[in-house]
């Protein structure tokens, strides 16, 4: 038999019971739609996260923390007291000056800066005061700026603010905020309010990753923290983390070695990317769950295919018998039914993917005008060609497998018995 004729006969058979074929295709369509949409979200988020991570900068920087003895806040373990392992807020083990020296001594480490974690009371540019958090600027970090520039690492009088603060603080635009002075207030160790006048040098683009806090230079952060911890022994001269610059010529292997060395000395080191990357791990997990839902829908649909084809084989038993009596090979009959199964998968899959792309473009449009307005370049759903084709091929293979049992059944029919079948 010619392939053309096998396809023609298969298509004719599908059209014979249009409603049944249609319903089976709908089942595949729903499964594909689910799978394609979750994949679309996955790709959209991943592309965005990678874009953000890709230009994160600060490539040769590690964030070093003390290894936590009491990771689990509800742990019931009773741990032996160790005067060196001082615990700060939330039982976080803090780092001391001697830790800085210890880390500095590790081969390959060029520079160590403590992270001065400060607590601010408010920010204000006139009347209204707003709560605010801040991060100390990390050397080389690329912050996506809407206007102006990042703060100078060694500046004690500069700040950059996230774009969302522009309007509340009373500035016209992101440009307008530049070079304006704001008041930053914090409480010192005696609980008294201290105000500082600082100049805005830049406005940060809104982003899902980091970029949420204001950013200040190292000396300013140190100055504030010193005032906040002055005279409190369990906080003074203690740091939550250290920023460590390592030899920029280090490759992946050397970096791993360095991390291991730090680990042996009792420190936990991560690159900035790894720190932010935890977000994408969480997202991956959620999307995996959604994908499983899509896969289950497809599995259900493939039972629909099995059922549809079994019915078709029964209905056409005589026809199959006639074809075999007239000399059709078993594999011809198999091919006809297998092709029917694959067609159902193909059409259901194709429509599922096309509709998901349609839905995606509508959602992206709406999102970019509403809740994702501030996240420039973030398409919630993305449908790259290769994964979409992979999904389609996967569904065709799945439907082929679903059609295999009925097809084999049809191909093995004995012509005489099939002809006698009423």
């Amino acid at each position: 038999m010619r392939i053309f004729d096998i396809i023609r006969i298969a298509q004719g058979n599908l059209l014979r019971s249009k409603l049944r074929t249609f319903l089976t295709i709908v089942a595949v369509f729903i499964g594909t739609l689910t799978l394609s949409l979750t994949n679309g979200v996955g790709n959209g988020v991943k592309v965005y996260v990678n874009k953000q991570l890709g230009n994160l900068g600060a490539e040769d920087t590690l964030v070093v923390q003390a290894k936590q003895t009491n990771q689990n806040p509800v742990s019931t373990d009773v741990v032996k007291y160790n005067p060196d392992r001082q615990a700060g807020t939330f039982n976080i083990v803090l780092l001391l000056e001697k830790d800085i020296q210890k880390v500095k001594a590790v081969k390959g480490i060029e520079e160590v800066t403590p992270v001065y974690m400060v607590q601010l009371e408010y920010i204000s540019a006139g009347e209204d005061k707003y709560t605010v958090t801040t991060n100390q600027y990390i050397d080389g970090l690329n912050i996506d700026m809407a206007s102006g520039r990042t703060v100078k690492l060694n500046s004690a009088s500069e700040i950059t603010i996230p774009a969302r603060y522009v309007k509340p603080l009373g500035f016209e635009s992101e440009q307008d905020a530049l070079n304006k002075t704001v008041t930053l207030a914090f409480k010192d160790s005696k609980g008294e309010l201290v105000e500082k006048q600082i100049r805005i040098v830049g406005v940060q683009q809104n982003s899902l990753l980091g970029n949420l806090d204001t950013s200040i230079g190292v000396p300013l952060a140190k100055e504030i923290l010193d005032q906040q911890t002055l005279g409190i022994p369990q906080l003074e001269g203690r740091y939550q983390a250290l920023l460590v610059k390592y030899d920029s010529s280090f490759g992946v292997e050397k970096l791993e070695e360095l991390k291991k060395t730090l680990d042996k000395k009792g420190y936990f080191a991560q690159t900035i990317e790894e720190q932010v990357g935890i977000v994408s791990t969480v997202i991956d997990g959620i999307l995996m769950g959604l994908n499983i839902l899509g896969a289950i829908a497809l599995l259900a649909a493939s039972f629909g295919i099995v059922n549809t084809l079994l019915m078709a084989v029964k209905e056409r038993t005589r026809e199959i018998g006639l074809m075999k009596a007239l000399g059709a090979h078993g594999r011809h009959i198999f091919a006809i039914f297998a092709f029917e199964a694959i067609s159902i998968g193909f059409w259901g899959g194709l429509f599922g993917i096309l509709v998901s792309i349609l839905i995606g473009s509508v959602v992206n449009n709406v999102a970019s005008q509403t809740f994702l307005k501030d996240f420039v370049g973030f398409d919630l759903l993305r449908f790259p060609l290769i994964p979409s084709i992979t999904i389609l091929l996967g569904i065709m293979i799945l439907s082929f497998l679903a059609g295999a049992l009925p097809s084999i059944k049809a191909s093995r029919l004995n012509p005489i018995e099939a002809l006698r079948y009423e």
Partner: protein
Amino acid sequence: MPETKETILQLTKVSKIYKSGSEDTAAIKDIDLIIHKGESIAIVGKSGSGKSTLMHVLATLDRPSNGDLIIGDKTTTELKNSELDKFRNKKFGFVFQQFFVNPRNSCLDNVVLPLVIQGVSPKERKKRGEAILEAVGLLDKAKSKANDLSGGQKQRLCIARALITNPEVVFADEPTGNLDSETGKIVIDLLFELQRKNGITLVIVTHDQDLAELCDRQITLKDGKIIQKS
């Protein structure tokens, strides 16, 4: 009587045993039979005597339980199913009592089915299909659905389908069984006319004594055994 006595089908000690439950029933037993090229042969006998079974075995639709079927110079016992499929497609034609047409398809589509299976090009199929429909007087029905035909027309369609591959042997199982005697006669006349014209070997299973008499030879079966040859 054909002048050449070339053997086209030969059965040697052929039995067909059906297992039904624990009991074995032999539908045909120890059949020895030679069929010559170009002759017409009738298989007669009471219902259940094994006529259809014998025809199925001769036509490779069923494999014998014992003994051999020899087609030309080939012993079919040694052939694979796919090779038997080819034999049936190229060398045999079939006419059944219940017609077995695909009612939704056009007459032309029905008649060219053996050529579709053979892999003949659509163009050639159409040409040969129309020619054979003309020979059975159904050319004007080429585009009609097979369902719209009368019984006699359906059987003529089946004869056309059986002959379209220029087969060497045509097997007909009760070809007039579903037709009134008048229509049956028209169909049979057509069948014999085309058989003689093309030098085809014809094997007819029938209850109808008049039809059997038209054949060159008759074989009578009883309880799966040949009791009379003529």
